[in-house]
Structure formats: structure tokens, C-alpha cells
């Protein structure tokens, strides 16, 4: 690796296609978007770059602030729930026998082999008012209602007159369920790998010194897997911020996240400059989050070395 300077032609041969690809398909479009974000629509199809800041000022309009706020809290809450679910799953895999481990990993990774669109449609089928979850709930309701009839309480309608299906679609809950489902594997993998690296003796030492299971979890396990948890948080939070398909389908167009509004600017609203500004703003937020994480990691490492 270090002697790429010595074999510069070889280095160039391998580097150029990759770099060219990246420049052509990533940096150039990003640059165009960046320039657009300072432009104005002058006709239906023409955009003039006037270096105006109007598109960025519109960010502070109440409805856009509300939109960002909703995007951030939906993603934050979903990330937290994802981590809470992912941690015990990772623990189960990390403590499973060597025979069971690859199979459990397979179960976690399996959804990756299916297209996101198909998985999201499957979620529609499960979460709908006539979906599988409500089927089960209705069956339970009928069972309960029947039981009440049987013991002579049928007339009071204790469980309501009819079965009322729970609405998951078209509201925040459906979007969150969808995001948690899709990004759960991303959270499991880093947490699992940090648990796997952990010396089990450390947990035993904590028990041996008189700590209970909960104290050991809080004082030893959590701090020693914090790097995995923070990676899991970032790796789920960032794509959640940019979710488009899930709020679009599971939110039934009623739960807008930032990506849905961006899409509308480029299509139905035909306001490319504003769409560009929104896109870049999302990108900046991502950068800030990554910077915070890098900074936090740096401090954690530095703290350890200075002691």
C-alpha cells in the first residue's frame, strides 16, 4: 500500500476508473444541485443561478421547520426503539452456541436479500386495517366477545359494539414500525460485533466483585459496548432521516418526512432550487451528526490515553 508512489502508473490504473466514476456520478451531480440551490425559477423549465439565499431562507418557514422537526423526532424515536430491540437480539446471537450463530445471523441478514419495495408492500399487507395483525386482533376480539356472551355479559358490550381495527397506516406509528423493521439489521451487526469482542471474564469479574446482573449490565456491559451502540445509532439514524419509500407507502402520503417533500419539489411542485436547498440541508445535518460522533470517539480515546 505505502509504495503507491513508487509504482505510480499501477496506482493510476486502478485509481482512475474509481475516482472517475465517483467524480462523474457523485461530485458532479452534487455540484449541480449545490448551484441549483442558489437559483431561481424563471420559467417552467429554466433555472437562473442568481446566488440568492431565498431557498435557504425558506427553510425557516413554519411548515418546513415542522417538517424537519417531525423527520428528526420520528427518526430519533425509531432509532432508540431500534437500539432497544437490537441490543437483546445481539446478546442472544453473541451468546448462542457456535452451531446456532450462523443461522441466527442468517435470519437477521435474510431481509437484505429482498427488495425494499417488496418488503414495504409486505408491511402494507401486515399493517393494514384488513391486514394480518388486525386479523389476529379481530380473532382475539371475537374470542373474548364470545366468552363474555357465554358467561352472560354479552349484553354489556364490554369490548365495544364492533371490532375496531387499529390503524397503523397513514400515521406516525406505521412509518416508525416500517423504519424500525428495515433498519434493525443495521443496528444488530455493530452491536453484535462489539459484544463478540468483549471479554466474558469482565462480566464474571463484575459478578464476582458483588455486582448483580443489572449493575453489571449498566456499569460494565453498556460502557464497553458503547462504541457499537453509537455506530448502530448513527448507521440507523442517518438513513432514517432520508427515508422516502417508507413514509410514502406506509404513511399513505399523510406522513411527510423531508425526503417526500424534496421529491415533490423536483416533481409536482417543479421547484428544483428549493428541492436542492432542502437536499443539501439534509446532507449538512448528516455531516454534523457524523462529526459529532467522530468527535465523541476522539474524546473517548483521548480520555483513555490521558487518564
Amino acid at each position, binding site marked *: 500500500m505505502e509504495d503507491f508512489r513508487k509504482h505510480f502508473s499501477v496506482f493510476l490504473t486502478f485509481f482512475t476508473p474509481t475516482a472517475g466514476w465517483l467524480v462523474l456520478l457523485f461530485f458532479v451531480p452534487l455540484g449541480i444541485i449545490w448551484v441549483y440551490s442558489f437559483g431561481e425559477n424563471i420559467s417552467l423549465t429554466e433555472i437562473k443561478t442568481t446566488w440568492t439565499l431565498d431557498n435557504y431562507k425558506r427553510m425557516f418557514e413554519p411548515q418546513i421547520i415542522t417538517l424537519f422537526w417531525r423527520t428528526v423526532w420520528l427518526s430519533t424515536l425509531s432509532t432508540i426503539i431500534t437500539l432497544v430491540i437490537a441490543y437483546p437480539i445481539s446478546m442472544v446471537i453473541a451468546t448462542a452456541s457456535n452451531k446456532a450463530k450462523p443461522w441466527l445471523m442468517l435470519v437477521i441478514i435474510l431481509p437484505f436479500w429482498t427488495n425494499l419495495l417488496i418488503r414495504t408492500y409486505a408491511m402494507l399487507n401486515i399493517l393494514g386495517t384488513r391486514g394480518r395483525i388486525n386479523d389476529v386482533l379481530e380473532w382475539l376480539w371475537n374470542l373474548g366477545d364470545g366468552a363474555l356472551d357465554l358467561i352472560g355479559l354479552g349484553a354489556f358490550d364490554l369490548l365495544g359494539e364492533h371490532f375496531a381495527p387499529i390503524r397503523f397506516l397513514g400515521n406516525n406509528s406505521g412509518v416508525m414500525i416500517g423504519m424500525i423493521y428495515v433498519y434493525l439489521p443495521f443496528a444488530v451487526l455493530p452491536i453484535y460485533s462489539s459484544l463478540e469482542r468483549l*471479554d466474558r*471474564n*469482565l462480566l*464474571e*469479574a*463484575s*459478578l*464476582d*466483585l*458483588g*455486582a*448483580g446482573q443489572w*449493575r453489571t449490565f449498566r*456499569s*460494565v456491559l453498556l*460502557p*464497553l459496548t458503547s462504541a457499537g451502540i453509537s455506530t448502530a445509532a448513527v448507521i440507523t439514524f442517518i438513513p432514517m432521516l432520508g427515508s422516502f419509500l417508507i413514509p410514502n407507502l406506509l404513511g399513505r402520503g399523510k406522513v411527510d418526512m423531508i425526503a417526500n417533500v424534496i421529491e415533490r419539489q423536483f416533481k409536482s411542485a417543479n421547484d428544483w432550487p428549493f428541492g436542492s436547498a432542502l437536499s443539501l440541508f439534509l446532507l449538512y445535518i448528516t455531516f454534523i451528526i457524523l462529526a459529532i460522533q467522530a468527535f465523541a470517539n476522539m474524546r473517548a480515546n483521548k480520555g*483513555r*490515553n490521558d*487518564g
Partner: protein
Amino acid sequence: MAPTPIISVHDVCKYYGNFTALEGISFDIKPGEIFVLLGPSGCGKSTLLRIIAGLETESKGDVVIDGTDMLGIPANKRPVNMVFQSYAVFPHMSVEANVAYGLKLERLPKAEIKAKVAEALEQVHLSQFSHRMPDQLSGGQRQRVALARALVKRPQVLLLDEPLSALDAKLRDAMRLELVKLQESVGVSFVMVTHDQSEAMAMADRIAVLKDGKLRQLDSPTALYKNPCDQFVADFIGRINMFDVSSHTRNGDAVQFDTKTLGTVTLPASLMPANTRNLAIAVRPERVRVGLEQPAAEMIAVTGTLGDVAFQGDSSLVEIILDGERSITALATEAQAETLMALEIGTQVYANWQPKDMLVLPENASE
């Protein structure tokens, strides 16, 4: 009257599926002794230590610590503390915080914790490192942290799992002495697991020799060396020259042993063990003399050629080759070794020793 044991292990068994890790282990540990569990890897010694600590549960039997049956009592409620083989020093806590960890759980006042931590660090000579993080310490220092962390809890018994195996040879020798001194100053019993017989011999008050999950012999180091109960213990503790016995006949006060290497050997019947299955007769290298002249008739002697002489400083190990594949090892003093080293390899020599220096050993005394 013997003092009441601090730990009493009674008929402890541990099974993993069909595999028997420990079977019928019973012994008492006295207050204030260094008790060593010795055996080759896979003999179940670490499992036994972990059962005493409460980190593993016995399949059968009881562990009684200080008069209380430990059945169902978890590791965090037992009056013992452990020093792990990997030390298991918490990497995210400073030396001080590591040592204070167990005390904080006892909800002691802060000032008392501070004083106890300082005292414990003093004891292991780590006072000036109290604010360091574990990754800034050497292996030996990390081990001291683990020691201080366990000792500060004032356990009834300190459990040590292969405490010296991760240290380099020089440090290991120094640490042996230091551990013994530490034990004398704190006065608690140490139960130590090791596979290194020289370590066990140097440190232990008593040694339990384990093999394949069974207790072979429990005795003081000198007794184990002088009177091993069977061939395994004799071979495991120190060096020994062993000769298989094909048959033996008793003649009043004497027993005749037929061996391939030594021919027929007559030994006093008092040397006979209770168990006489697959006997072997044996002699320690330091009892074997090597000479150029035919030894006296009462000596047991065998003719061979001189092999390698391995210089060890104050003594040398001399190899006497008998018939190409078999050999006898003798331990020669400095002066003897000098004479032997002057000889050419292949010179005919007589290895000889007194009949009373021989041991008669069954293959496995407990079978």
C-alpha cells in the same frame, strides 16, 4: 483438633452432556493456607475453581464456604473473590476505579472506600499508578490491579486462576515470592489453579493433583514428591525414571519385580502400594549415580552409554542411553558433571542407585 475448614468441597461432580468434567471431588481447605489445584490442561481444575466462585454450578455435590452451604448462592453473594487468568481488569475504569468497584457495591462511605483503595494499592505497590487506565499498564501491573481489586473486598478465600501464566519467566519467579508474601500478610486462604508443577511446588502448602476430572492425590509438596501415589502423580511432579513391571512375586519380606530394562529387581515388601495393578518401579534422577566402574552388588545398576549432559548451572541433567530408544536421566552435581562432560559421548557408564530409593507405583491408585 484440626481447624474448621474455610472451604469444604464434598463429592462435587460436573457433567457437560455426556462429558464428565469433574467426578467425586472432595477436600477441605484450611484457613490461611495456599491450596493449589494442579493438573494438565483439561483436567477440570479451572471448572472446580469456577464452581467454588459460583460462576458455574456443580451437577452434584456441595461447596460449603465458612460453614454456609453455597447451593443456589450466586457469585455476587459469595465471600470469595477471584483473580482471573486474563486479569479481567475493567478497561474503561482507572486503576483506582477498578479497585473501588467492589467496595462501591457494598455502599460504604466515600472516605472509607478511598482509604481502603489506597491501602490495597499500597499493598500491591501500585500507589503511583492509581489514576492510570489499564491500557497504560504492563501485564504484571494489570495483575496487581486484579489482585488489589479482589483483596480489597476482604474475601474469606482468594481464588486465583493461573495467575502467573501470562507473565514472562523472570517476572513469574518474582511474582511467586510476592504472592506468597502477600498471602502471609493478608492471612486469607489462597486457592490457586495452575498447570505448572514447579509453581505449585514453590508456592503451595498443599497440592491437589487432578487428572481427567478426578482427584489423584492431595498432599504437601514434599509428600507428593517423596511419596507419589501413582505413576501419573510421580511423572507430573518432578522428573522420574520409570520402568514397567511385567510381573511380580512376593517372597516373605521381599518382592521380585520383572522388568524389561532392569531385569529382575528385588525390593522390600514395605514399598508395595495397596493397589498393584499395572505396576512400575521408579527412581528420581537425583538418586541415580553415574560411574565408570562396576558398582557394588547391593546397588541396582544398569549399563548404558553416556548421552547428552544438559548444563543447568548448579547441577546437570545426564542422559544415559540404554538400548537406543530407552534412556535414564540422572541429576549430577557440579563436580560430577564436570567429570562426565570430560568423557566422550558414547562412553560406557553404569547408572546405579540404592534399592530403598525406588518407588513402586500403580498406574492409577484410585482405580
